[in-house]
């Protein structure tokens, strides 16, 4: 039944929580008030047809859920001129301009909806959204509207916007893309022209042509081919030069040799009235190869920019306290030692320092992998980038941003990356052998004919070089890789480096990080044990009511449940639990030592596992067991990997013994708990020294150096920014399941590449002797070249099925 899922976001609708909106003349179910408000806004502004045109629902964790007043209030800080200074440009006419990164765009309908909605807002002068990059360029009149109003307007239709500063890499991508397009344009237009002249010349060769006309057509062809050769063909010439300098034969070498010979001999033939010109072959050759490379470039750019977008770190702000203790928002990288900052509950601590005021608990999982927060008192050191969980604290900053723990980790990451083992590329190996063979053959052919028919020798050698056109051979790998990259991104995997796919093929060992990778990284309620006379539903409602106010990871396990309405006066005890009043009773939930009333001994129902007690002032009411649950598909994945002969390892930073538990549950080959990032890196190095090719899956900041050090690394969904930058690929979905399909596709890709290479070699083996014998006229070699290239491309496209 269509009624079961939310019409806006596609999530399931629970029977008790239905929030209908009339869209396109029918009442549609919505899963939450957030979706309802977004859908209603879309209907109210008259853009219902968004629902007809969209191709995909917005992502499940729709920012619509954030449409709570708190979230909208926090946006007001964007109007602060101090924060705007880095992002907002003032235009000459007094208006302002900003680049916003918009998350949640899934198809063209989203872009249309957003642009129309923004243009209808008062004071917005211009708005252009680029769908491929998810960037919006918005300019507005500061007299009529403000930045926070714009971001709120975007939030009202269900998208999230944040200020964005383009990364240098993106400028390079953009330049490369334009450069490639220009070359293709020149080669394409040139090829069309030269082809028409070539047809005339061929016709003339069969039916007779006046020498003056022939000469004229040749000169015009030479004129048009010159820019094609020197401008559009430049990448091949440069590539060949580079590879000769490095004493390594790449595919560019025969391409460049064939092009150079064909071009200069044709020019010579034009001047000296020689037998044959190959201008059309030069142009077609350049054009085909450029198109092939452009497709490859685009696939690579696309996943690169997606990963840049994903890892774009939000502007970190800090509430700096001035002399009168009033907070002022400043960018975190402007803090200096001695600054005092206020960190509210749920905020990231902006820099290394120590606590001046307040006690609280800090989640340091990004450093240690340990999900449970650590209690901090006045005077305790805190690390920048960690999360303040429960209560506001004041921190005195002690290091410059450049020397913080976070920056040190980043440097460790860069070093690991620089020492990454190089991956050997299959196509290159075959190519260099083939190139050598072609070059030797050409020389032999030339020598042979020089003794038998010296006047034909040069032309026959040239036709050997042209007909053994490395076109099919040089397209064989890139087309398959391109098709595979596209298919992988449909499967929810972004390959962000050129060698990712090649690297995945050779994997012998798979290393998993535990928290956040094999497990979900969030606690869930596993078991409820009521004491005699209590009912578990009531207990759960009470627990939910108490834990509602806490953002502690254990408390979050209770957030999904229906809360008891009568609990009042709730208070958080940092890293201990929560207290509240129900009529005359004082309820406490939390660590057994905290929750149990004095004089009562607390014994959890079972010795192992993490138990939370709920008690009133007299006795314990019940127990809850919470655990960081395994991802649903972790065990099938491990089984599959082991069945295909790969060893599985688990590395974990936490010391609770949970790692060993998880490992034995999954039956992996090796497990290391309580490991620091350095330990993890050493572990992987040891594996590599023993000849293993390691695939690392991780999510945390503490995994980043290890990800960079592994042969291939994958960051799972929701991984930290740094982990995504360090990884060779990013899993987009919440499950590990795609990995199985990814490895299969990689195998299939190499099957296709092998077929392509085999075909290209076969074609060349047949064509080469015939050309060497002088049997192949130019038009036949051009036809053969195109047909063989086309076959290779079509074969690669099978991967997309």
């Amino acid at each position: 039944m269509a009624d079961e899922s939310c019409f806006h976001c596609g999530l399931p609708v629970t029977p008790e929580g239905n929030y209908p909106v009339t869209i396109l003349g029918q009442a549609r179910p919505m899963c939450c008030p957030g979706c309802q408000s977004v859908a209603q806004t879309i209907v109210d502004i008259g853009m219902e047809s968004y629902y007809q045109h969209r191709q995909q629902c917005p992502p499940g964790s729709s920012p619509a859920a954030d449409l709570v007043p708190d979230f909208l209030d926090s946006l007001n800080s964007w109007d602060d001129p101090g924060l705007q200074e880095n992002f907002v440009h003032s235009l000459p006419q007094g208006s302002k301009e900003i680049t916003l990164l918009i998350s949640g765009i899934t198809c063209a309908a989203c872009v249309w909806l957003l642009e129309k909605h923004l243009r209808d807002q008062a004071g917005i002068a211009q708005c252009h959204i680029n769908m491929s990059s998810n960037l919006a360029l918005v300019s507005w009149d500061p007299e009529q509207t403000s930045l926070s109003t714009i971001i709120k307007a975007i939030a009202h239709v269900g998208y999230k916007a944040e200020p964005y500063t383009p990364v240098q890499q993106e400028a390079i991508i953009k330049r490369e893309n334009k450069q490639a397009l220009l070359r293709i344009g020149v080669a394409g237009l040139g090829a069309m022209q030269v082809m028409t002249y070539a047809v005339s010349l061929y016709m003339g060769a069969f039916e007779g042509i006046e020498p003056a006309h022939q000469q004229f057509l040749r000169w015009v062809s030479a004129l048009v081919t010159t820019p094609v050769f020197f401008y559009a063909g430049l990448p091949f010439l440069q590539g060949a030069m580079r590879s000769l300098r490095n004493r390594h034969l790449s595919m560019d070498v025969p391409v460049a040799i064939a092009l150079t010979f064909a071009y200069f001999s044709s020019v010579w033939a034009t001047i000296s009235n020689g037998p044959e010109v190959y201008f059309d072959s030069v142009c077609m050759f350049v054009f085909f190869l450029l198109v092939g490379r452009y497709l490859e470039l685009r696939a690579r750019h696309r996943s690169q920019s997606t990963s840049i977008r994903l890892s774009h770190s939000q502007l970190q702000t800090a509430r700096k306290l001035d002399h009168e203790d009033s907070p002022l928002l400043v960018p975190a990288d402007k803090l200096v030692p001695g600054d005092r900052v206020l960190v509210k509950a749920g905020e990231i601590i902006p820099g290394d320092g120590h606590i001046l005021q307040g006690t609280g608990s800090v989640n340091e999982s990004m450093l240690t992998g340990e999900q449970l927060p650590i209690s901090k008192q006045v005077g305790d050191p805190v690390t920048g980038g960690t999360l303040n969980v429960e209560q506001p604290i004041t921190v005195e900053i002690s290091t410059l941003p450049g020397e913080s723990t976070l920056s040190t980790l980043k440097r460790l990451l860069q070093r690991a990356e620089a020492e990454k083992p190089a991956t050997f590329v299959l196509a290159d190996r075959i190519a260099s052998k083939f190139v050598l063979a072609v070059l030797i053959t050409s020389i032999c052919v030339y020598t042979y004919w020089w003794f038998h028919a010296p006047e034909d020798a040069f032309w026959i050698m040239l036709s050997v070089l042209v007909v053994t056109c490395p076109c099919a051979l040089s397209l064989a790998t890139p087309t398959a890789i391109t098709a595979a990259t596209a298919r992988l991104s449909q499967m929810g995997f972004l390959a962000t480096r050129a060698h990712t796919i090649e690297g995945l093929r050779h994997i012998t060992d798979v290393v998993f990080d535990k928290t956040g990778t094999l497990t979900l990284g969030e606690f869930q309620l596993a078991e409820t044990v009521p004491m005699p006379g209590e009912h578990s539903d009531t207990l759960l409602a009470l627990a939910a009511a108490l834990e509602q106010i806490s953002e502690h990871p254990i408390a979050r396990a209770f957030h999904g449940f229906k809360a008891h309405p009568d609990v009042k006066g709730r208070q958080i005890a940092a890293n201990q639990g929560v207290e509240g009043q129900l009529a005359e009773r004082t309820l406490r939930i939390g660590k057994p030592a905290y929750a149990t009333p004095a004089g009562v001994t607390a014994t959890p129902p079972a010795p192992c596992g993490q138990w939370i007690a709920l008690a009133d002032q007299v006795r314990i009411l019940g127990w809850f067991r919470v655990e960081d649950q395994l991802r649903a598909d972790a065990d099938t994945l491990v089984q599959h990997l082991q069945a295909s002969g790969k060893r599985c390892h688990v590395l974990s930073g936490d010391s609770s013994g949970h790692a060993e538990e998880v490992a034995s549950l999954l039956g992996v080959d090796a497990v290391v708990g309580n490991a620091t990032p350095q330990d993890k890196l050493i572990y992987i190095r040891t594996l590599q020294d023993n000849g293993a090719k390691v695939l690392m899956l991780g999510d945390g900041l503490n995994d980043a150096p290890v990800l960079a050090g592994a042969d291939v690394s994958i960051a799972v969904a929701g991984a930290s920014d740094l982990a995504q930058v360090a990884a060779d690929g990013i899993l987009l979905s919440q499950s590990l399941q795609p990995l199985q399909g990814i490895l299969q596709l990689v195998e299939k890709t190499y099957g296709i590449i092998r077929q392509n290479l085999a075909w290209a070699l076969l074609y060349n083996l047949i064509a080469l002797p015939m050309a060497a014998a002088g049997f192949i006229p130019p038009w036949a070699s051009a036809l053969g070249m195109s047909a063989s290239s086309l076959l290779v491309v079509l074969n690669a496209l099978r991967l997309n099925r």
Partner: protein
Amino acid sequence: MDIIFLLIPLALVLLVVAVAAFFWAVRSDQFDDLDREASRILFDEDSPPPSAGARPPKHEPKP
């Protein structure tokens, strides 16, 4: 066939114009977002009022 001495140079002039136009188009960012331009035609700039009976024909794209 001597006409080709006139026509081909003329065609070359057109070629130069075409290349120049293409360079201009690329440099002014017109090839930046190919995904979006492809589906622009599907959307009506004037949205129908919410209760209008005559809605545009449904172009439900395949998922």
